[in-house]
């Protein structure tokens, strides 16, 4: 099961960075919830439709150059660290955004996505560091 979730994560991430929004949506539970980092403007996004729209908006604003740097298999969860080389699609201003996320899966779909600006916080959350 856990390798399936890692494979699913990779598939979803590829779809996200290639604008394949039907595939992105198909990997989300209808009642999926995103809990963002406390520093992010939106604090929680609920439902497949809203989360897909939110992700699409982010990619369309910041560009698709996003790479997974670390991926940890946690059974029913996956911990990922990614680096987003952002480029404002209107302004052209570039930047680098590193975030970690813990994705919880049930029946092959993401039901909970948690974002952490600080990777240590994500590691602590799942008990990988004290």
């Amino acid at each position, binding site marked *: 099961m*856990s390798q399936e979730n890692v494979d699913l994560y990779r598939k979803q991430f590829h779809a996200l960075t290639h604008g394949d929004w039907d595939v992105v949506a198909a990997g989300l539970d209808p009642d999926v*919830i995103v*809990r963002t980092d406390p520093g992010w403007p939106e604090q*929680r996004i*609920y439902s497949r439709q809203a989360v897909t729209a939110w992700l699409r908006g982010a990619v369309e604003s910041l560009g698709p150059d996003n790479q997974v740097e670390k991926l940890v298999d946690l*059974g*029913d969860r996956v911990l990922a660290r990614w680096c987003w080389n952002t480029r404002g699609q209107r302004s052209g201003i570039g930047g680098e955004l590193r975030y970690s996320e813990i994705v919880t899966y049930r029946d092959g779909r993401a*039901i909970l996505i948690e974002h952490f600006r600080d990777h240590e916080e994500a590691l602590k959350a799942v*008990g990988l560091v004290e």
Partner: protein
Amino acid sequence: MEVAKAVIETWNARDMDALRELYDPDAILRMPEGWPEPGPYVGREAVMRQWEQQRQTLDPGVLEPISDFIDAADRVVVRHIWRGAGHGPEVNLDITNVFMVRKRRIVYQEFFWDYAEALETLGLEE
């Protein structure tokens, strides 16, 4: 683990204010498959409304743990019997509770009908 135990204690003590304090403002609650009002309930106020409703339905609604509290990193699993009488026939639900705790507050709570399934889902063994 203390937070999970406190949920059981506060529920059984009918201390809903104390119970409320155990939830993160952005807490999420998922009831088990087939539950009449499946939710999920998003946000502490929605979670507490659901619990208030359950308390009215199942009153007195006592939780009796029938397993150990299993600590799995940021999650705690406990199987319990949820006893209630309410306005209808007596209810004894054998149900497993999974709490996810961050900074001493519940951020995510999920129920399973089957204890073994809950453990398997979390990669644990009975």
